[in-house]
């Protein structure tokens, strides 16, 4: 294999006049396929140490917080906790808001791949008739979570306000948020397989 590569390179060196890049005509260009792909490993963290909007108060009791403080520990917890990212969406004019709240944690994965793949066989006989290119996301075998969390709720305002404080102190007693549920994830989730994506009419 190596000797063949060297042979090809030396042939190129020996004949520089023929090695110049040439414009491809349309027919040649249309017969070419993209090749190769991307292999991704990474770790990213969201609001691991809290965000910019609120600082962590000393206690978990909302009536003791100042205007710039908020804790996202569950009700009744003894210690306060940093808050994660908040996304609020309103799906109705003059309505309330869906809230994805306290999204934070560290997520790491190794071996997320992205490439194109031609499928023209396999898949219980479907592949031959399909015969086209797909975009293939190869899932990493393992995704690690550390202190991952999020909460799903509904609220009457997009931005969070402290209902235990008076308006004069930077709160809003009429603010209402109901968390439907929240979740915490720690540890490793195994995800294997590929997601094949292709255009569809």
């Amino acid at each position, binding site marked *: 294999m190596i000797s063949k590569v060297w042979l090809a390179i030396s042939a190129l060196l020996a004949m520089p006049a023929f090695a110049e890049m040439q414009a491809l005509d349309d027919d040649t260009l249309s017969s070419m396929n993209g090749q190769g792909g991307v292999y991704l490993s990474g770790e990213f963290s969201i609001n691991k140490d809290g965000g910019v909007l609120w600082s962590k108060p000393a206690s978990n009791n909302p009536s003791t917080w100042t205007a710039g403080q908020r804790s996202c520990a569950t009700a009744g917890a003894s210690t306060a906790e940093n808050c994660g990212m908040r996304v609020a969406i309103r799906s*109705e004019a003059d309505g*309330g*808001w869906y809230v994805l709240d306290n999204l934070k944690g560290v997520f790491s994965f190794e071996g997320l791949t992205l490439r194109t793949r031609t499928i023209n066989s396999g*898949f219980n006989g479907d592949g031959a008739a399909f015969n086209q290119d797909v975009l293939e996301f190869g*899932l990493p075998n393992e995704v690690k979570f550390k202190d991952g969390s999020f909460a799903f709720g509904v609220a*009457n305002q997009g931005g969070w306000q402290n209902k235990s404080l008076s308006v004069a102190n930077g709160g809003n007693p009429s603010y209402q948020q*109901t968390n439907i549920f929240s979740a915490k*994830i720690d540890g490793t989730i195994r995800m*294997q397989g590929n997601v094949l994506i292709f255009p569809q009419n």
Partner: protein
Amino acid sequence: MMRSIGFGFLVSFAACSSAEMQELADEELSTVQGAGFGFVLDSIMLDASGANITINDIERVRSDGIKENMPVKLSEFYLSGSGSNKGANKTPVTLGRLNHPFTVTLGKGEEMRALSDTWELRSKVVREGGANKTVQYWAPSGASQWVQTTPSNVAVLTLAFPERMTSGGSSCISGYAGAGLNCSSDPSGRADLGMRFDFSVGGGRKDILDFDLAQLTMDGSYLRLWGDNSRKQLVGEALINIFAKNLDISACTAPEASANCTSAAALAGTMYLTNAYANISLGYGKSQPLQFDVNSNGQFVLELSNPVNTAGTAAQRNAQAADFYANTPRTNLVFDNMNIGYGRPPANGFANMPGAALNSNGQAVVGGGGMSWGYNFGRNEISGLSFNYLKVTSRDL
């Protein structure tokens, strides 16, 4: 290198007359359809047994009246190929086929179709107030049809599972024709799915709820979303089809410190459903879209409003009602066999119900033949249900 690029530019300038972008004429433009992409989950497997997942914000009340968070631990969460024996032997599975994939599309409301049973108006004579009276009712005619359920002139975002077909499909549940023979998924594309919830209810006790689905397919399910101009909100319609060969739901109580219930408690508290399927239809876009709401008080509201416009004339109301009854996909819930505590029934059902034994007082007791604490409920079915009105709202306790 520079020279060759320059050469490339020259060539492209020389050829530009044929490569120029052309405007589309109106007729050409009108034939362009909204489109999207399809996806197939190839050799997929999911296993969260190595992670600690806790669900919070569900509260319990202590004996002294104080409310506190009740942690719910999610475990034994897996998605595997079928034959996993409740997740013990996980294998990869391919969900969706290349010619019948999952799809995410943006389309015109007037061009979308949903597979619905056909319904016909029948009449029968009933005895009421001492007199005979003819009443009319809608009943399934036994065939299925593609109907338009979404309103016209809206752009609809659709997330759809592999479709169901009017011909050429495979059985939705293997060996059980009652669930339909029109699923596009291959028999090898059925998945096992399970999850277990441990509710720490307090007082040193936890309640365990464990779900295991075997040979699950969800063909024909979809979620469609669009904006409703007059209501000024996001609306949609959803059909959730669940076909499972087996569904085991185990509910039992254990001390907080124990990992599991005792095997006797787990057996006695397990509901075994065989050949189970559900078609849950929420919303009929043309006249009764599903409204996803959060009201201005910050509470969640899910609503299916009256499909008939009460401000219309009698003829308009009748036409709306007739369209609603004739075309709305219905909700069905069918368990071909349901029993609690016996264990999974053999392929042809239980040979015999356990014989009644007599106890020392001469009273008949259930449970002869070693099958104690078991009850066989046989076939259970709710079919052809449609929601005339539904409103679900959250409340802060």
